[in-house]
């Protein structure tokens, strides 16, 4: 039973099928897209049900010899780190495909690229061979380029090529490190698990250089300041469903890569890099929040809030503690859920009003009660209101980073980790400020007469958003069902990283 391969490649089969269906049969294209992403999602639920939570070894492993000349294997497997992200990917893909059933232009190509994109993303999460990982990592860019460039906003073409070249530039660094690692390891291998178990051979200067190269490749994806400039443009110009995928899944590839590859492979360099990581996380959190506050475009605001939220995940990672890592993974998932629903909701309003300017609305709460409720709930989750998903993960990230005891002191008394954690809390304040301001300006106050005729959400939109809302509450009230999946893996990972020291 090759469950992982099925989950990964079923969307691709759907994409090829779509290519074979004539262009005019628009509804058939939509049906195939929904069907194949739904199958992939259901299979990933099956994965969740049969996953063994007690062990940290790789599960559902598939290993076939692929290019024996270089010892490259088709090696798939998942653990508690990748499983939540796989389910997040299949879920968000299904929901955004449902959300984009309203796309009318070049429907065939749209769903073809969307399904190819899904395969690429899932492939990155399941592959345990660096060569395979790199292939999926690159393949994913092309569909994204088309999805932004054809169906995006006014500056779509520039946004598409900027995104494409920026990430390709990052992959250059990754490829060099992959090749260098191959010759450093003995016997030569591309297998991620073997490379990790051989990490004793990557010592001295090599370790730091390779670490930095891979870090840049992943940091561009996250994005970590100062590599973030592609993000606002791409997010704003992309069509709604693609923004959901961008924020919900693509950004996680960067943090996933760090936890899966970077930290275990170069533990010494990682611990050495802990303090810069704290500082970068702090910048991401505060800078992202402040810039988000300055936006009047709702989508741009949500986009910058992503930079802020990924900063929390980085903060959780920077500490190298079990709590922090748990928080970081949970933050990836909850950010995917919450920001995904926020992007979908902003898209709903944009479809009706054709503007996203915060100042041009007012009093929508009376006209669109369901919509208002959903937006307020998502915003509250995003700003970290207790009882909703965002609170749990942010709390864990802060707790984890605060509990780490860094040897380096600031002002002679405060450990640097505690110092930057404390400063970062300011980010929460700013986040609350801009979300509340948005809610106030758009939904409260007197109704702007211009929007008198707006209709509330239709069934298709509800189907795509409500599951995310339900999850937001579910994770917020009872996070154990998610944390229990990752805890064993995280424990082992943290022990491993500290053990090599």
């Amino acid at each position, binding site marked *: 039973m090759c469950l992982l391969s099925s989950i990964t490649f079923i969307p691709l089969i759907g994409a090829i099928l779509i290519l074979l269906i004539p262009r005019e049969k628009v509804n058939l294209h939509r049906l195939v897209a929904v069907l194949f992403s739904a199958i992939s999602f259901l299979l990933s639920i099956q994965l969740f049900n049969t996953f063994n939570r007690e062990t940290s070894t790789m599960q559902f492993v598939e290993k076939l010899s692929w*290019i024996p000349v270089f010892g490259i294997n088709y090696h798939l497997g998942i653990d508690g780190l990748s499983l939540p992200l796989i389910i997040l990917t299949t879920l968000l893909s299904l929901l955004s495909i449902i959300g984009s059933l309203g796309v009318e232009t070049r429907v065939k190509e749209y769903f073809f690229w969307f399904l190819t994109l899904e395969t690429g993303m899932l492939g990155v999460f399941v592959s345990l061979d660096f060569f395979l990982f790199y*292939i999926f990592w690159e393949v994913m860019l092309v569909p994204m380029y088309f999805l932004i460039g054809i169906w995006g906003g006014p500056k779509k073409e520039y946004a598409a*090529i900027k995104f494409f070249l920026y990430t390709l530039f990052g992959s*250059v660094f990754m490829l060099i490190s992959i*090749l*260098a690692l191959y*010759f450093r390891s003995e016997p030569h291998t591309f297998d991620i698990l073997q490379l990790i178990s051989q990490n004793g051979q990557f010592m001295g200067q090599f370790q730091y250089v390779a670490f930095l190269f891979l870090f840049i490749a992943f940091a561009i994806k996250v994005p970590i300041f100062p590599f973030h400039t592609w993000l606002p443009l791409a997010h704003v110009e992309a069509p709604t469903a693609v923004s959901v995928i961008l924020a919900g899944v693509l950004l996680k590839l960067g943090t996933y890569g760090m936890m899966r590859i970077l930290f275990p492979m170069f533990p010494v360099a990682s611990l050495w890099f802990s303090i810069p990581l704290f500082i970068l996380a702090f910048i991401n959190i505060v800078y992202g929040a402040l810039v988000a506050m300055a936006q009047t475009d709702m989508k741009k605001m949500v986009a910058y809030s992503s930079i802020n939220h990924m900063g929390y995940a980085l903060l959780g990672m920077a500490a190298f503690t079990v709590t922090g890592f748990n928080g970081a993974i949970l933050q990836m998932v909850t950010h995917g859920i919450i920001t995904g629903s926020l992007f979908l909701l902003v898209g709903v309003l944009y479809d009706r009003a054709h503007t996203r300017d915060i100042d041009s609305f007012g009093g929508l709460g009376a006209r669109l009660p369901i919509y208002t409720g959903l937006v307020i709930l998502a915003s509250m989750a995003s700003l970290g209101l207790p009882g909703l998903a965002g609170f749990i993960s942010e709390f864990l990230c802060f707790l984890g980073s605060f509990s780490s005891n860094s040897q380096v002191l600031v002002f002679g008394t405060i450990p640097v980790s505690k110092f930057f954690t404390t400063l970062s809390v300011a980010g929460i304040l700013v986040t609350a400020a801009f979300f509340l301001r948005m809610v106030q300006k758009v939904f409260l106050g007197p109704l702007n007469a211009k929007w008198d005729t707006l209709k509330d959400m239709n069934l298709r939109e509800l189907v795509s958003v409500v599951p995310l809302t339900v999850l937001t509450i579910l994770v917020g009230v009872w996070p154990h069902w998610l944390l229990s999946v990752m805890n064993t893996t995280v424990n082992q990972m943290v022990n491993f990283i500290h053990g090599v020291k």
Partner: protein
Amino acid sequence: MIASLQILLPEIFLSGVALFLFGMDTFISRRLKAWTIFISLAALFLALFVVIWSPWSGRVFGMVVSDVFSSFFKILAITSSILIFLLSEDDPELMGPHAGTYAGLIILSTVGIMFLSGTEDLLILFLGLELTTVPLFILAGFLRKEERSSESAIKFFLVGVFSTGLMIYGISFLYGLCGGTHFSDLQQWITTNRSENLTLFLIGIFFLLAGLGFKFSLVPFHQWTPDTYQGAPTPITAFFSISRDAGVLVIFLRLFGHFIPKSPLNLTGFFMVISVLTMTIGNLTALRQTNLKRLLAYSSIAHAGTIFIGVVAGNALGREGAMIYSIAYSMMSLGAFAVVIAVSRIKGNDELNAVQGLAQENLGLALLMLFFLMSLAGIPPFLGFLGKFYVFLAAVNEKMYGLVAIGLLNSVIAVYYYFRIVHKMFFMSPEETRPSPNRQFSVQTVAWFAASVLLIFGTFPEPILFWAKSASQILP
């Protein structure tokens, strides 16, 4: 001695067919002329089978060798020229009244590459190169009504003759020093008495390199390439890029990979500079092109530079990488030119604007072109990526990190101009709707064939890697 001639059977047979085809041009009857294409294709297929399953291997007169390495390039050359025939099959200007000449010249040029692939002697090297290029002089100017075509032929001719002169000059130096033209004579000289007269030897090598550099269009000897590429009939342009690759690469690999180790001559640094310059200048100039053929010409210069990394690395991995890359390159450039031919027949020109909105007019063709461009840009899962990966792997093995970094950054630059074509095809709307094109069956066949080779061997490269490995083991 004479018995060893059977090794050359495919070459002799093809030359005979070429001469016969020249004769066919004298027939008046149109019906007989229609057979040209079938005869050439049949002959090429026959030669292909003989090369693949030939039981003979060994040396002919100690000058030409037939081994797995040479048959690798022979198969590449014959397959490519079959595809070139398919590309030009329904072009009335090429396969019109002078079909026999056209076909015969292509076959002769192919025979030239076949000789080159087995060369172990400077004389055969020289003759093979001439046999490859002289037919191309005529073929480049085959569109006699078009000024550009004649310009292309003249430029190519002048440069070709000049580089031949340089090469002969270099060879005469080497002959004078080593007392022989066989590669092993050179090898012997360099191992025994390299202390004296090394400068003279180097001058000879440099002249030889300059000549080869012209043919391989390495910077700074590349200036002829864009004009010739643009002016020549498009199938011939495609043929240029392949013959250049296969023919000259094999010399570099045989001569510098086997007989003359680079280390005593300290050529590695020099080769590295050439490779970096070729990649960078090719790519930077390609950025500004608005003609599809010209753009592909400059990109082919850049690719020559990247393939050359394999030669620079100088290890077994590098040789294999260069071989894999040359298969990949010939397939992707053939495919890309096939699409350009298909498009320019519909639109009547081969400017960048011709592909505007192609995705909405003909999604299949646009996707094929996308595959070729992705492969050219080195994006997986196509064979082009594997070729790049392979040569870079070889260079990293030699700890040439700087070279790899420059090569990889160049491939990011390349993505920009390749995706300008993609941008035109997918993001723009067609300017005006044209009447639906004729089927162009044979051109489509070539494109599909190339795309499937790229995709199949890109995802399951084992057989092709194995082949390249066994071929490159012939050389130490």
